[in-house]
């Protein structure tokens, strides 16, 4: 790397331009989030004048305090965590269970099974037929609507399968001679070896389920079952949750603190996005790996 860089020395001017453009791009990506953040912690009076651009004026965390008292926020947070955990665990299980037998050369009908897996990658029923099937299966307005369909992804199964195939067959044969059953070989030999690919799949599933709002919007009209993203949608997009109407106590608190709905909304954005912002830089190598694996297969 350093070698290459030494060769490619160029003019100063080009350097200056490149760095300047990149810094501008960086500002464009980071500023909106920063703006939301400084507005959410600023003094309510200053925030109301909307003249805060570069740094927070005053420090008021009362909007966050109000958020913590909102029960439906916590409930939807909890729902999201339940969905994320169960989907991720199930996704890993289904991937391994389906990918392992396909790597056995002795499996009868392997060609047929491969076609069975490939068809859903290119053809899908689309929104309406899927909705009808889900309703007929009794999954409408049922927490399983969030868990069953997203526990399976043909793409991930194929990724997992490709990885399993790189594990030498001799290992399995040796274990077979020692009298191991297939399920034992899978859990005790293949699973520990496949950790890298399982990490990639797990991380993609976590972010996917965490950010998913369309599926719950279609299948979960019951607000008690809805995940965080739908709660956020009600507050941020439809704007039909007025905090001053939630309770008399909250209204009084808001009036006393001169908090605006806007500030509370911004606090909510920060509060719900913070986990992802802090976590993604550490996991980004897995994401990059996922993109690479995907492109190799495609």
């Amino acid at each position, binding site marked *: 790397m350093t070698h290459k860089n030494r060769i490619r020395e160029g003019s100063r001017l080009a350097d200056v331009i490149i760095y300047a453009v990149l810094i501008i791009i960086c500002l464009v990506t980071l500023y909106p989030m920063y703006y939301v953040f400084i507005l959410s912690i600023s003094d309510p009076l200053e925030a109301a004048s909307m003249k805060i651009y570069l740094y927070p004026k005053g420090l008021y965390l009362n909007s966050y305090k109000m958020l913590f008292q909102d029960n439906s926020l916590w409930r939807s947070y909890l729902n999201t965590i339940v969905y994320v955990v169960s989907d991720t665990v199930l996704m890993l299980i289904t991937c391994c269970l389906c990918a392992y037998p396909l790597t056995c050369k002795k499996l009868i009908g392997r060609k047929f099974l491969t076609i069975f897996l490939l068809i*859903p990658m290119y053809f899908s029923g689309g929104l309406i037929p899927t909705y009808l099937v889900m309703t007929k299966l009794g999954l409408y307005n049922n927490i399983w609507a969030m868990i069953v369909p997203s526990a399976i992804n043909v793409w991930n199964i194929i990724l997992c399968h490709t990885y399993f195939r790189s594990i030498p067959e001799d290992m399995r044969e040796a274990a077979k001679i020692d009298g191991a059953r*297939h*399920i034992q070989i899978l859990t005790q030999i293949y699973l520990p070896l496949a950790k890298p690919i399982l990490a990639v799949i797990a991380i993609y599933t976590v972010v996917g389920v965490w950010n998913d709002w369309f599926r719950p919007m279609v299948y979960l009209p019951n607000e008690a079952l809805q995940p965080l993203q739908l709660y956020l949608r009600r507050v941020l997009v439809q704007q039909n949750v007025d905090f001053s109407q939630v309770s008399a106590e909250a209204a009084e608190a808001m009036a006393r603190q001169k908090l605006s709905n806007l500030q509370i909304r911004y606090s909510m954005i920060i509060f719900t996005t913070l986990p992802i912002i802090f976590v993604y830089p550490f996991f980004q190598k897995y994401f990059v790996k996922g993109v690479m694996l995907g*492109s190799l297969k495609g």
Partner: protein
Amino acid sequence: MQTAGNMEKVLHKRRPKYTREQIYENIELYLIMLPVLILIFMMCYLPLYGLLIAFQDYTPGMAIFSLTENIRWVGLKHFVNFINGKYFVRLITNTILLSLYNLIFGFWVPIVFALLLNEVRHMKFKKFVQTASYLPYFISAVVVAGMVLSFIDMSGIVNKIIVLFGGTATPLNTSPSAFPVIYTITNVWKSFGWNSILYLSTMSSIDPALYESARLDGANRFKQMWYVTLPSILPTIAIMLIMAVGGILGSNTDLILLLYNTATYPTADVIGTYIYRVGLEGGQFSYTAAVGIFSSVINFALVFGANFISNKLTNYGLF
């Protein structure tokens, strides 16, 4: 040779095709997969079968296919209705235009970004910019839409800046002419960093010797970029372009659903949002299933067309 072959055939016939051991092993393997196969069948194949309702007058509670019950087959009625419907032209125009804007203004941004980043020698700075550029990808669509809607509000930051430069504040969130701009900017902002990953990794695998020889031939930095880096990522560009063209009718329904409102339907309503509204909220299942099939067929044709052209022009293609 022939006799040996015959012998083998005879032997093969006499032996059962699979040994008992093999059958037991296969049962074991199939039992491991069975739950997953059933799930795939339920979640992927049943909806495919459900597409049949596009050719019927389906009402909820009816069977999708049965020999005993009476099913009202209507052939291509729903397709014809859609094409002759009053929203057909608007929907197709909006869908194609929004995707086209996205392609025109969004496709080259990741490439330029990757080319610039590739020139940075300061590793820490490079890493920081790269990580920062991924951030929007991880923020959920709901939060992004919420932020955008509050920015373009009458009292939002965008209008404040417009006023600062001497303009007049306008209600941007209900203005049909502003919607494509807002949508395109949001979409490009959300995805450019992520889309640059593939280009960057392709660039990092370019042989440094190529740059060295280019320098010996007197190529400056820009020329190295133009004659070495760009040709090396051309296959990747071609493939990404084919995929982008294939997605023209599948514009980002998610984001549009969050950003649009009744006032902006004239420029914001696309096939995906129309299916959602008329199908799920309006209950016209058969009709919207037909609309769905219509758009997938065109998508398929577009991918094949784009692939054909790319094969002819650059010799790179998906298949």
